[in-house]
């Protein structure tokens, strides 16, 4: 084997390494999962975020008249209050999880495409001859 590497091959190796360490790091990590597995994972995480967001939303909405809000809770029928809270939470979580699903799906597709190109480039790199490799001539 000759010691010289083609400049083009070197450039491509650097580009691929940059992809692995930079923008492609996340894409490669995402593609370790299957599509449905990745989306399910994102939705489970998002469910907890949705719960936190609903609580924060209620707090911020009530902050204009916090005393009045607490008084209203104290005087309200617990069953009606719980059912209203449940309906609010289900609607908020459904909206948030729908957006999460769309986002995760798009992310996965994009990552899959990037990794496919990356793998094709690696295959191409393996086939590409060195500059002064007499054994390949």
């Amino acid at each position, binding site marked *: 084997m000759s010691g010289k590497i083609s400049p083009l091959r070197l450039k491509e190796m650097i580009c691929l390494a940059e992809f692995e360490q930079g*923008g492609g790091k996340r894409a490669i990590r995402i593609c370790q999962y299957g599509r449905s597995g990745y989306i399910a994972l994102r939705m489970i995480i998002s469910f907890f975020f949705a719960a936190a967001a609903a609580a924060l939303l209620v707090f*911020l909405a009530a*902050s*204009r008249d*916090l005393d009045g809000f607490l008084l209203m809770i104290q005087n309200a029928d617990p069953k009606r209050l719980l059912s209203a809270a449940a309906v609010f939470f289900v609607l908020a979580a459904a909206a948030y999880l729908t*957006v999460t699903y769309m986002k995760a799906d798009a992310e996965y597709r994009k990552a899959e495409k990037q990794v496919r190109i990356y793998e094709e480039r690696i295959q191409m790199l393996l086939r590409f001859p060195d500059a002064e490799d007499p054994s390949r001539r």
Partner: protein
Amino acid sequence: MLTAAFGEKLKSIYARWAAYIDAAARFLAALFFFFSVYRATGFWGMITPPVLIVAAVITACAGTVTVCVTGCALIIAEAFFLSPFAGAFAACELLLLYILFLRLVPEDLAAFLLMAPAFSVGAPAVVPTVCGLRRGCASAFAAASGTAVYYLLKAFDQAVPEIQEAGKNDYAAVLRALSEHALGQEAFAACLITAAAVCGVYILRRCRFRYSFEIAAAAGGAIWFLLFAAAGRLFGVAFDLPRTAVGGAVSSVAGLLIQLLFLRIDYSRTRSLRFEDDDYYYYVKAVPKMTAFSGNLPQAEFPVFDEINEEGGKGGLGSGGNAEGAGTGHTPVHPEINQAELEKRLEDSLRNL
């Protein structure tokens, strides 16, 4: 041609020094954001301009996410020194913005950072215009979150007399004062207008009619001003319309500048093309991007899909290259590809990674 050449020059400079230019841009964004927070609050005596500059340098080296986290921590800390309940309110609002919007668009955090400084200098429409021109509709989330942060900072400024009068431990008064200003109709309308301006510019840019890029660039400021004027009537809020008009004009100029430098299109060389594969006929309108190298190319050098199909056989898009590639004035594809062409193709495809 001069602007196209200048745009190419800027791109080549950026390609060479990307790491340093990115870090410098992050530093400036961090500095502007931190100083916007400092100007609006300033309750914590330890935070001084030299401290902010050092913080901007450190966070700029670490990345955009670090700049955002540090900026939000600064807001919460400053609010905490005003009143512990103000700190809790700020933390809740920022956390809500993160969960609802910023978590979904981590790549558009720059818009979030720059919105408050843009409001401070009186040209807030620049950020939505640039987002619409260079990014997608999703960046509306980040820009609207930035607007919400600006109104939060403004609320601290406006609520100080009320909080001092009521006492900083009166939680009901503190929360009422802050929520009236930070979550009022004005803030809500401004967030919606910001999102609408981003989407409006983006939709115009994607339209198929001639000069859509130019119109989108110029329309950013106009959309911003018209929506503020309409919202003022609708919600009964007294927006500062002369200032909004000036900001809108500045944003239109900024948008046109970006369009001239980076989004130039040569409509004089528009071609309507037709080609086919086994299943479809394709009718393609190819409008070439104007670069410093393609502006003076004669018409004859422009590749035609029908010719490519004849040369390379029936193959559709795959054999002839895509319409955009055909429009850049490159030579037609030949079966024998030399080393230089192969290198260029590889670079192009790697750039697409």
